[in-house]
């Protein structure tokens, strides 16, 4: 059921999409339109979240840097 809902939502999203012409892509190319505008900051923050929460990270990033209690 959940998968069906996801598929329907994805299909509706695709229908709602328009064709983006090359001359309309200037804003899409802006740093702030990237999923991670600053990869270095995102990586350092993810490291902190992985050290303080149980579901962040996953693949090991080394032992410390965490100050684990």
């Amino acid at each position, binding site marked *: 059921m959940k998968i069906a809902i996801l598929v329907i939502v994805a299909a509706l*999203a*695709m229908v*709602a*999409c*328009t*064709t*983006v012409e090359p001359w*309309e*892509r200037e*804003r*899409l190319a*802006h740093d*702030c*339109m*990237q*999923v991670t*505008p*600053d990869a*270095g*900051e995102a990586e*350092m*923050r993810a*490291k*902190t979240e992985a*050290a*303080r*929460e*149980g*579901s962040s990270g*996953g*693949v*090991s*990033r*080394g*032992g*410390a*840097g*965490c*100050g*684990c*209690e």
Partner: protein
Amino acid sequence: MGVNSGGRGSGVGRQKEWGVLCAMVILCSSLAACPSSTTTGADYRRHSDPLATVDSPRVAVVAAGEEMEMQGYWTADVVTGATPVMAAPDVYTRATEFSETRHEVGVGAQWQRGDASSPSAWVRTSRESDYASQAASASVAREFRERHLRLSATKRAVYDRVGRVDDPGFSESLWSSGLATEATYAMRPDLVGHLTWDVQGQFGYQHNPYRMVPLFEGGVPTAVVAERHPERRIRHAVEPVAIWSFDEAWFLHGRYRFYADDWGVRSHTVGAELWRTWLDDRLRGRLRLRGYGQQGARFYRARYDALGTYRSGDYRLSTMGSVAAGARVDIRPSPFGERRLRVSAAYDVTHYRFVDYAPRTSMTARSLGLSLGMEWER
């Protein structure tokens, strides 16, 4: 691992530094061989909470050619803090100061091929007095539908060696393997949708070798035993992201992440970032909000009354939540010659709440980030 590190007594501490050397050789040769533009960046981040203070410098170099881009970085975590000692049943009453430094080096390369595909590969090595980690990843990305859709897949593998600073003979291993698939879709000239699905498996030693768990009898602590976690953990995460530019100067990121693993941990994360640019993009500001809620692992207990198969004293496996808010400012002065400069500062505050963690019910963390970057053309 977060304890006293008086020396490099473990087998891990004596590991050869071949990984670091190889990384530096590859980085240097790439810098000499290919770049038409080079970006260097130096970052510093300080995270401080009641458990520890972590100072993290980071230096990164990106050398980009027409068909190939090489990246390399070095980072360190200088951790200082105090860890409760459970050498006796009356736990949480003593703490030992610790200080530890972890170094990490990574290099990566990405190729841009004419068929709109871009393979890439990374290797990383990390070491500290009682822990060493070697990681490699390879990914491929390809664009479809006249560059509206970008699909990518990344395979990662990590091998860790876990040691103890007070026991040179102690050495355990942990294998991790993961696959992340991502889809990014340009839905409109001002809207991007992104979806990530991440599955990871970890196999091997996943306890903290220093952490002890108290056992209670009739409400009284009677003994402490070593922490014990399952040696297999399969983790799944799904994260949809939407990025909307509702004006040429305003950008809004919204994201949600659902996580589940076979230890019983479930979590929901919601986040939003609002970016604003001024002065022809020479000044940027950002506000960030994040909310996190987590259901604890099946075997986690605030108090253990019987010696079961598994027990944990790790608050990260308890039921908990956090709320974070922060701000960031970027300054990008006008280019001078072929060089462009970027300076940024960020400050975040995170408040954690613990539902069933005996030593504390809440804590507040503060993070300061400073960054300096320069890009120049050759």
